[in-house]
């Protein structure tokens, strides 16, 4: 109650509201207060100074001397860097986030195949250059044959295990960026083989397999396969390599 009172007072005075352990009742009241505060006409636009300052900060992060590599060949270099860094630097590189107790010995990506020599090439990979290994499930939650959605930092995706192979793919349709939903495996019916779980796009109905391959679509051009995410298993945790949550 006291925490809520202080929270509301901070909100009204446009200060950063201080944290407190809210029960669901307090959360309801806080939500309502936020709705009312956000309802002040004209209150919701960013300050020009803020927009400029953030742009400067991003420029420091993103502009040369750390150029953004173009898609394609640059990704190999980037991956090589990641691999090396992860193996040698382990804990330091992965920033400690979510890495508690994780040995580096088991670190590397069961899921992402080396670039294949054949023409088709592997599915694209989604490799943040400043990432962290985040736990997205326990091993028990991803038994053989399971597909499980996760959200980790900036990335939404699905982890799965098939034939012992752990995989993680992006959960965003490669056509227009809609978020895929998980269609549970079809029941084994009379004369029908069991249908594996599929990732379905709500926008145009494209369907992907848990390993990212396109199963079905009705678009003019076949969308690309879902990007693979680096995934690993440490102890009893399933972790994916995703953009690092920003420090605060």
């Amino acid at each position, binding site marked *: 109650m006291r925490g809520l009172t202080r*929270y509301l007072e901070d*909100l*009204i005075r*446009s*200060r*950063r*509201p201080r*944290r407190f*352990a*809210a029960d*669901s009742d*307090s*959360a309801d*009241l*806080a*939500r*309502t*207060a*936020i*709705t*009312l*505060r*956000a*309802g*002040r*006409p004209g*209150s*919701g*636009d*960013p300050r020009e100074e*803020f*927009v400029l300052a*953030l*742009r400067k900060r*991003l420029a420091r*992060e*993103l502009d040369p001397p750390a150029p953004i590599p173009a*898609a394609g060949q640059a990704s190999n270099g980037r991956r090589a860097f990641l691999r090396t860094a992860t193996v040698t630097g382990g804990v330091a590189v992965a920033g400690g986030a979510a890495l508690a107790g994780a040995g580096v010995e088991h670190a590397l990506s069961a899921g992402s195949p080396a670039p294949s020599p054949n023409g088709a090439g592997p599915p694209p990979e989604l*490799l*943040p*250059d*400043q990432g962290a290994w985040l736990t997205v499930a326990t091993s028990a939650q991803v038994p053989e044959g399971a597909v499980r959605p996760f*959200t980790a930092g*900036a990335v*939404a995706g699905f982890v799965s295990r098939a034939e012992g192979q752990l995989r993680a793919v992006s959960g*965003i349709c490669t056509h*227009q*960026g*809609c*978020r895929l939903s998980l269609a549970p495996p079809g029941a084994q019916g009379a004369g029908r083989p069991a249908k594996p779980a599929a990732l379905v796009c*709500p*926008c145009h*109905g494209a369907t992907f397999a848990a390993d990212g391959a396109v199963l*079905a*679509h*009705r678009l003019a051009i076949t969308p690309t396969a879902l990007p693979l995410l680096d995934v690993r298993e440490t102890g009893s945790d399933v972790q994916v390599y995703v*953009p*690092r949550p*920003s420090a*605060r």
Partner: protein
Amino acid sequence: MRFSRATPSPARPPGAAATGPEPPPSRLRAVSGEEYADWDAVYRDNVTWVYRLLFTRVGNRPDAEDLSTEVFMAALPPLRLPAPAPVVRAYLVSTCRTALARHWKRTLGQQVTTLPDDVDAALAEVRAEPGAAAPQRAARILAALPERYRAILELRFLDGSSIAEAARALGISVGNAKVLQHRALRRASEVGARLAAEEG
């Protein structure tokens, strides 16, 4: 493999029409071919709505600025460009969603506010008409309240009056104003929940 069955056309998929039915508001401008060439284009075209969207869910500037910073700092470095604008927007919405979830986890320990699962719904709130959805939501709640409740909430949350000023304006004691505010907020919360349910 192709689908042969005809399906009802979905609600406008992201970016199906070049810039949507509404003229883009001030800082949001159409990007040639609806594709972003570099991070700066992504930033300039999206920073306003990202901030607006987060502001409607936290209700205060310091948190909205922190979260907007978090979203762009997390989203831009791994982004491969050039990329189609709708894809990038969907990615930003989903980054906002996770940033917001983390924010509540570390502050109140409850998911106080969330973003809609549907990217279009989230974008429609803030891109179509600048800031219109949030004032409407607040106005609808206030309109459904008894006079005294509405008065105290307007004084406090819209005008930003102190509890003493609000008490004076209503001709009641500070103690009574506190009680009135609490009851009014509770009622408003019930109304808000009902309206949200009606909206689906």
